[in-house]
């Protein structure tokens, strides 16, 4: 058994899952925003990046790792809420291209701002858990405490988001205003507040992903989240942008595919793998693999 766990195949499985879970987190955050306001937030990655950078400047002042995580998530959430109020709110009811363009402008602004303040070199956080692979009977098992921490943290966040949507009053209001804003408004739900909360939540989830990346081997640089965003968008689109479960599954699929392309071909071809998966998925089910294409009863 341990020989199997130390095989290159399992190495790729573990590494793919570790990368995929990050895509899943960002894809989930894209789905939350998509469901609340029907905007694909192109600046999602950049917003998470800048929140994490602010957390990292605090860690330089000597605060602990968990404080950095908390600060990054808080900043991310605040940024999400403000963005919805200031940049997205004026564009409801306008052509669907307008919010896309504005968020792309915001993406460019945040990346240039981060590079202007913190330079474009890579920064990373000292990770709270070791990245050294476990050993069993003298064989390396390609899992480290950090990978387990990363997967557990991401799963924890996803489950809490699911629980929030499923079991709380706020979650019910969020779902209702996404599904039927007019009816919800008549029933006394503050729909516009729900939209802001949706963005806030989503930006918080995104910030967690950026913190994990910054804690990992390679650290974080201002345009780092571009690639993550593309992979996560593909993950969310494969799942159908409507389905949180689909986004999570899509993230893992993309992560594993990229890892196997990297291992058996070249890292430069990996982005093409994502596109091919997206094309195939859209050919089979244009509305996404995980969405019900029936008319929903309200």
């Amino acid at each position, binding site marked *: 058994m341990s020989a199997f766990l130390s095989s290159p195949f399992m190495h790729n499985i573990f590494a793919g899952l570790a990368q995929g879970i990050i895509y899943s987190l960002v894809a989930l955050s894209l789905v939350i925003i998509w469901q609340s306001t029907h905007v*694909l937030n192109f600046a999602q990655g950049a917003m998470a990046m800048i929140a994490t950078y602010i957390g990292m400047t605090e860690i330089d002042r000597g605060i602990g790792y968990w404080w950095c995580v908390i600060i990054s998530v808080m900043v991310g959430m605040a940024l999400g809420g403000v963005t919805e109020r200031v940049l997205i709110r004026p564009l409801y009811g306008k052509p669907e291209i307008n919010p896309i363009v504005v968020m*792309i402008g915001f993406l460019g602004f945040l990346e240039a701002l981060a590079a*202007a303040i913190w330079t474009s070199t890579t920064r990373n956080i000292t990770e709270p858990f070791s990245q050294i692979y476990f050993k069993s009977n003298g064989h390396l098992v390609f899992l480290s405490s950090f990978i387990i921490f990363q997967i557990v943290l991401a799963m924890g966040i996803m489950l809490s988001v699911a629980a929030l949507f499923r079991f709380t009053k706020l979650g019910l209001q969020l779902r209702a205003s996404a599904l039927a804003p007019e009816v919800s408004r008549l029933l006394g739900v503050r729909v*516009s507040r729900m939209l802001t909360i949706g963005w806030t939540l989503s930006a918080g989830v995104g910030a967690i992903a950026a913190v994990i990346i910054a804690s990992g081997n390679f650290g974080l640089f201002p345009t780092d989240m571009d690639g993550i965003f593309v992979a996560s968008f593909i993950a969310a689109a494969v799942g159908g942008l409507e389905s949180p479960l689909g986004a999570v599954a899509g993230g893992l699929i993309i992560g594993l595919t990229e890892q196997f392309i990297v291992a058996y071909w070249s890292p*430069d071809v*990996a982005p093409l793998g994502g596109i091919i998966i997206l094309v195939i998925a859209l050919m089979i089910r*244009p509305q996404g693999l995980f969405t019900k294409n029936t008319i929903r009863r309200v």
Partner: protein
Amino acid sequence: MDWLRSLTRQETTHSRLLAIAFLTVLTVIITFFLPPVADSQLAGGAAIAVVVLGLSWLTGWSGQISLGNSGFMAVGAYAAGIWARHHASTPLVFTLVLAIVIGGISGLIIAIPSTRLHGPYLAGMTLAFSAAVTPLAQNFTSVTGGEGGLFMNSLVTPKWFLHFFSGPNAAINANAQWSADLAVVVAGVMFFFMANLFHSRTGRAMRLVRDNDVAAELMGVNLARARTTAFVVSAAFAGLGGALYSLLQASVRPETFPIGLSITLLTLMVLGGIGTLSGAVIGGIIYAFSANLVAHVNSLTGVNPTSNVGANMQGMIFSVLLILTMLFAPRGIVSLKNPLRRLLRARPVTIAAKEVH
């Protein structure tokens, strides 16, 4: 200026040809009075204007959005570069036509799965494409030259053109201006094609597709085919622009075509005015002289241009302009002439009813 406007608004091919030829010749004459540095900047701006025009057609006329046009530029540039490596003495026109064709074909490949998609899906898909192009160019080293890219012969100034120049740097100055004039003429030809496309049957069908796809389908327009056509034309323009751009630089490198370039193209299109010829011209001019603008802002604010902030000033200014334009004047600089005229006439302005969500 009324006569000029009436000239560019003409409805027949003949008068469009006259108007665009007139403006092209005017620009060429202007290049004789510009310093060589400004000529080189103008040449780059002309190449980018062609790409912006292609994007503007896609967004303004068919209602689709693409973040992949930097990728199509790369495809056109590499097509020209790879061809030039094996056939050094090909006439320029052939190289450019090759870039158009290869650009168009790459557009077709991306369009077939994409055109069933609407707004956000399409934007994401094309973003994924332009994100994949740079690593791919780096990977297939034997064809693309990898990280270092490919070198091309720089444009050769003909003998007769040298007669206009004198002084110690005559040859260099002549080359800078010849490149600029060539780029302006190529851009003029492409603008003429696009002006005709705007007024053609396809152009009219496209506007209907954008505004009301159900009505378009009832009128017998094949939606998928119309959207694919729009995409292919846009990619072909980007391919030509990319090839022209790298011919001016005499090299093709992967890092010339980052995702950021797609964002720049989008910014130029929105700033100028989506879906208009003059908007693309304005976009090209802004691109050409953006370095001067940024240097001016740096000196006004006292920022050191070689510092971190100075190096990222252009990115910040462009992004803020993109956001502000989209929020407050979504039809770009071109649309500002109407409020300006109204202001001059001092007529009471009716306040539009505020849109309630």
